[in-house]
Structures are given as structure tokens and as C-alpha cells.
């Protein structure tokens, strides 16, 4: 795996911006009451999905969490139907049954967001198991937060995947918070990647930088593909908008939040690309305009989709 080309870097930038704008749009329509339930955004954490998904094919798998929009988008979910799902409409990926918290598109290997913290980790390992069983070179990526590493499922699955040599990448986004508990309240160790050692797999720490993540995940994916087993990758990032949209983060204080927001994986990457003349201001404008119209289209599509009818509520519960 060589250094990413200029085109690839521009593509990374575009992908990160696309995730950011999509979630900003979600916050907007959520606040307007067009989306119901809970909305957890990953704004500030866009580097990890773009960095890891750059190595994945459509037939590779990824499992996400309540904070999973970024991965779904980076893995190739179509914005229109994703938006329709969040709007609870019939044409959404999950027939309007799931909203944000269970967004899935199996055709793109997106195995589904999970409402149970730690619930998705072993399921993704199962996708890795299936790939190995069938003798393919597919890989599976389990994504989860720092808080999830305290569930038994995390520890059990790392051990299982390790002894079974499964083609899995465990990608932990350590944003320093599990709901309202800061990391020191829920884990004694600062580097959660250290936990990999107990299960005999490499544990890698990367900062919230798309290129660093791209490189670290590249190695992990390569290792998994060639049958050398799983890796735990920890990304050090931050959670900008609280646990859910509407969380005023009083427990954290504005100063700390501002501090976190000052470290922006997109702005930093943008500055670098501008400085290296890989990107021009005019390119940025074009990227923003394109994304804006794509999102408008997605929202308009969602708005005009019908809701499922009551008679469809139980459709397909059993095969």
C-alpha cells in the first residue's frame, strides 16, 4: 500500500465533507421534528469512516453503532434511501422500521447499526467467520466506541476472533465519552488499544487524521485479507455535539467543547491540501455546492415518500 495519490486525497476530503454536511442536515431536520427518536451524530469523527472504508470493497462487511451514519455513508449507502429511512418512510432501507439507530444496507455490506452497546461486535465477527468458512478474502470491520469496550461482548469477541484467526478489524473510536461518563470513569487505561495484548492481536493507536487512519487500517485490512487474523485499531477523537442531538453538555462545559471543536479533522486536512496546492478554494466551493444539492435532493426525496401503512407493520416478520 503506497501513499495516497492526490486524487485519492481530494476524494478523502470530499467524502469527509459529505458526511459532515449530511449530519448537519440531519440535525436540521431533526430539530424541525421531521426525524423522530434519537439522533446521534459523529460530527468531528469523519476521518475514521473515510480512512477505513477506502480499503473496503462492496462485498466487505462493516457493522456500526448508534453513531454510525459516517460509516454507512463512507461504505456507499445511497443518501436518498438512507434519508427516507430516517424520515421513517416506506422507501427507506429498512422500510421505515428503524430510523437512525438501525440503518443497514446488506447489498453494500453495511450490516446494520445497533441500539445495544457492544451488540454488533460479535455479529460482525460472524461475517468474518462466514468469509473464512466460504474461503473468500472478504474482511469485516466492527466499529464501536470507547464505552463499548467495557461490555463482555467486546472481550469475548476479540478472544474468539483471535483464536479463530478471523478476518476482522476492530475499530474503536475513542471519543472520550460514554454518554455522560468521561473515559476515566469507565476505564482505567488511557489507551484502549492496550486491550489487544490480552487477546494476542496487534493494537494500534492513531490520531484523528484521515491519512494516519487510512494507513493503519490499510495494514489491518491487509493482515485480515491474507488470513493473518484480527487487529484492534483505536482512533483518538472527540465528540462535539454531546451524546445525542439536544444534549447541552452542561456536564462538560462550553470551554472544553470549544477546545474539542478547535481540533477539526476536516479543517486540518483542508489546510494541508490547500498548502500543498492539491486543492484550490474553487475546488472546495464546487465540492460544497455538489454536496448541498445532493442533500437537498435526498431530503426532498424522503419528504415525498409515503409512510408505511399499518398493514405493513408485520410484513415479513417470518420468511
Amino acid at each position: 500500500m503506497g501513499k495516497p495519490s492526490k486524487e485519492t486525497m481530494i476524494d478523502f476530503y470530499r467524502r469527509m465533507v459529505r458526511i459532515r454536511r449530511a449530519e448537519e442536515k440531519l440535525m436540521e431536520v431533526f430539530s424541525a421534528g421531521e426525524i423522530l427518536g434519537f439522533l446521534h451524530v459523529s460530527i468531528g469523527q469523519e476521518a475514521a469512516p473515510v480512512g477505513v472504508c477506502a480499503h473496503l470493497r462492496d462485498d466487505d462487511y462493516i457493522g456500526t453503532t448508534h453513531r454510525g451514519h459516517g460509516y454507512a455513508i463512507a461504505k456507499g449507502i445511497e443518501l436518498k434511501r438512507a434519508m427516507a429511512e430516517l424520515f421513517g418512510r416506506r422507501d427507506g432501507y429498512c422500510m421505515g422500521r428503524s430510523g437512525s439507530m438501525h440503518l443497514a444496507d446488506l447489498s453494500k455490506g453495511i450490516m446494520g447499526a445497533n441500539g445495544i452497546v457492544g451488540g454488533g461486535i460479535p455479529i460482525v465477527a460472524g461475517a468474518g467467520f462466514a468469509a473464512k468458512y466460504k474461503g473468500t478474502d472478504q474482511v469485516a470491520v466492527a466499529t464501536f466506541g470507547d464505552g463499548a469496550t467495557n461490555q463482555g461482548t467486546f472481550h469475548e469477541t476479540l478472544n474468539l476472533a483471535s483464536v479463530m484467526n478471523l478476518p476482522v478489524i476492530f475499530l474503536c473510536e475513542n471519543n472520550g465519552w460514554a454518554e455522560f461518563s468521561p473515559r476515566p470513569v469507565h476505564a482505567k487505561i488511557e489507551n484502549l488499544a492496550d486491550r489487544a495484548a490480552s487477546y494476542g492481536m496487534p493494537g494500534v493507536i492513531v490520531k484523528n487524521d484521515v491519512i494516519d487512519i487510512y494507513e493503519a487500517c490499510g495494514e489491518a485490512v491487509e493482515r485480515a485479507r491474507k488470513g493473518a487474523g484480527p487487529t484492534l485499531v483505536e482512533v483518538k477523537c472527540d465528540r462535539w455535539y454531546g451524546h445525542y442531538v439536544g444534549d447541552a453538555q452542561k456536564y462538560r462545559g462550553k470551554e472544553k467543547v470549544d477546545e474539542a471543536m478547535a481540533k477539526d479533522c476536516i479543517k486540518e486536512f483542508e489546510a494541508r491540501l490547500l498548502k500543498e496546492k492539491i486543492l484550490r478554494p474553487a475546488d472546495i466551493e464546487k465540492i460544497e455546492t455538489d454536496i448541498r444539492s445532493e442533500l437537498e435532493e435526498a431530503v426532498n426525496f424522503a419528504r415525498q415518500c409515503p409512510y408505511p401503512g399499518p398493514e405493513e407493520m408485520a410484513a415479513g416478520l417470518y420468511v
Partner: protein
Amino acid sequence: MKDVRYIFAIKEALEEEMERDESVFLLGEDVGLAGGSFGASRDLFKKFGPRRVVDTPISEASLTSMAAGAASCGLRPVVEIMFMDFVTCAMDSIVNQIAKMRYMFGNQFSMPIVVRMPEGAGLNAGPQHSQCLEAWFAHVPGLKVVMAANPYDVKGLLKSAIRDDNPVVFIENKTLHAMKGQVPEGADHLIPLGKADVKRQGSDVTVVAVSRLVNEALRAAADLEKEGVSVEVVDLMTVQPWDKEAVFNSVGKTHRLVIAHEATKQFGIGAEVAASVAEEILDELDAPVMRVGAPFVPIHYSLEKVYVPGVEDVKKAVRATLQRA
């Protein structure tokens, strides 16, 4: 008496019992610094400190069994499970361990533990954040199961649950957390476990209900009164052990029975009540028993309103029992 919200009544119960008994402590995710995800332990961390209001990592299975171990060594843990759906992660703790420890170790110790959890739809939170699973626990010998419909009851029942030497699964309903109601002041407001409460007297039809559906049944009863139908509403309050006598007395008076809960109708607690009535006092019935409950399907994100049973469903069921003379 003073007017307080349901969630505040829970807080008062916790606070009073912690003041009363040094061995009572709280344990759960975000119960301390954050005061609980729904605010049930607000300010208690400040008052009692981290020794007695214990924040845990996200580890439902182990924290619940840890509470069991502490209970068997003389403490009285009150565990908070953030949403009832997440209690599934602690099923070994509750079903294999907590429910059976006293019995299988030959009654050597008691298991004075309360596991609190909010259930139910209402937030459009989808299939994994909206379930009502009380029937599972009512099916397990060794557990008590309690459900409170209003602030007055929740305070009195929770205090009794904490003082009870048996393990109690204490189920709230999320949509009730904001409900306001009169609650007695002072630390001795206790409501006995195992006793139902006749919330409204009536002579034509008995509606046995729990939790949120009690309030829906009361609304239905008020509406039906205008149609000349007199409905008696019996709130079970304790689902396990349930107050058969109160239910049978009421059915003996009205000869018609509806059972209402938000949980899935199939294999729900209504089935147990109906079966017991059929087994023991069938002759008292003038009409088939009707049940109100959710359809047999996971909870749908955008069709939540259609899914959740409410006042209209209770009215329909009551009318149905009256059509069969």
C-alpha cells in the same frame, strides 16, 4: 401531599431509603455524576457521594451480578438499567443467579436487590429501545415484579421494594416519568407488594391493567361512563406475586373481564390472569375475557402510534365484552 413528577417521586424514594438504611446503595450507568439518564438519581451523588451512588462502565451483565454478590453479603443494591431492552444483557444475572441464589443455596441468605428499569414506547426509539418485557420476569420463580402507574404509587412501591428481602424487578414506563401527581410527604409512605389497587369502582366490566395502561383504562372508564357503562379498574401494581383475590372479587361483581398492558398480547401477563380466571372462577364470567396488548411484532419506528395500545383499544375491548350477554 405535594404535586411532583413520577421521576421525582422515584428520586425521593431512593433518597429516603438511603437515608434510612446505610446498606442501600445505587449502581448503574450514569446514575452518579449525571444523576441518571432520566434523572432518577439527580443530586443524590452530591448528597451521598461515590461510595453509595456508583457509576459503572457499560457492563450490564457483570454489574447486575456484582449487585447480587453484594446483596448476598448484606447490602441492599438498587440497580438501574437505563432502558428495559438492555436488561437482556443481564439475563443470566437475573434469571440464573439472582432469582435462584437463595433457593439453591438452601435459604442461607436473602437477596434484597431491586433492579429498576423503564420500559415502553413513546419516544419513537425503535425496536431495541421500546420493549415491555415484564412477562419474562413474572415467569421466573424467585423474582417479584412491580409496575407503578403514577407518582403516588411509584414512591410507595419502590420504598417497599427496597425494604423487601426478595429480588424485585421494578418496572417504570418512560412516558410516565413526566407525569405529575400527589405524593405524601414524609418517609413512611409505603405500599405493600402483592396487593392490587382498585383505582375506580364499577359494576359492569372489570379492567385489570398495569403501568401506563392503568391510566388509559381510567380514561376509557370516564368516557364509557357517558355511554352508561360502569367500569371497574384494578391496578395489579405487583405482577408477581399478583393479587388474585382482588381480581376474583372484582370479576365476581362485574362478571366481565378485560386485561390491558402495553406489552405484546401473546403470552403476556394477561394470559396468566385470564387462564387463572378460566381455571378457577369460569362460572362467574358472562362473556369471554378480552385482552388489550401490542401486536406480535417488534416495535416499529414510524408506526409507533399504531402499535401502542391505548384508551381506544381498552374501550373497544370493554364494548366487546358487553356485546356478549
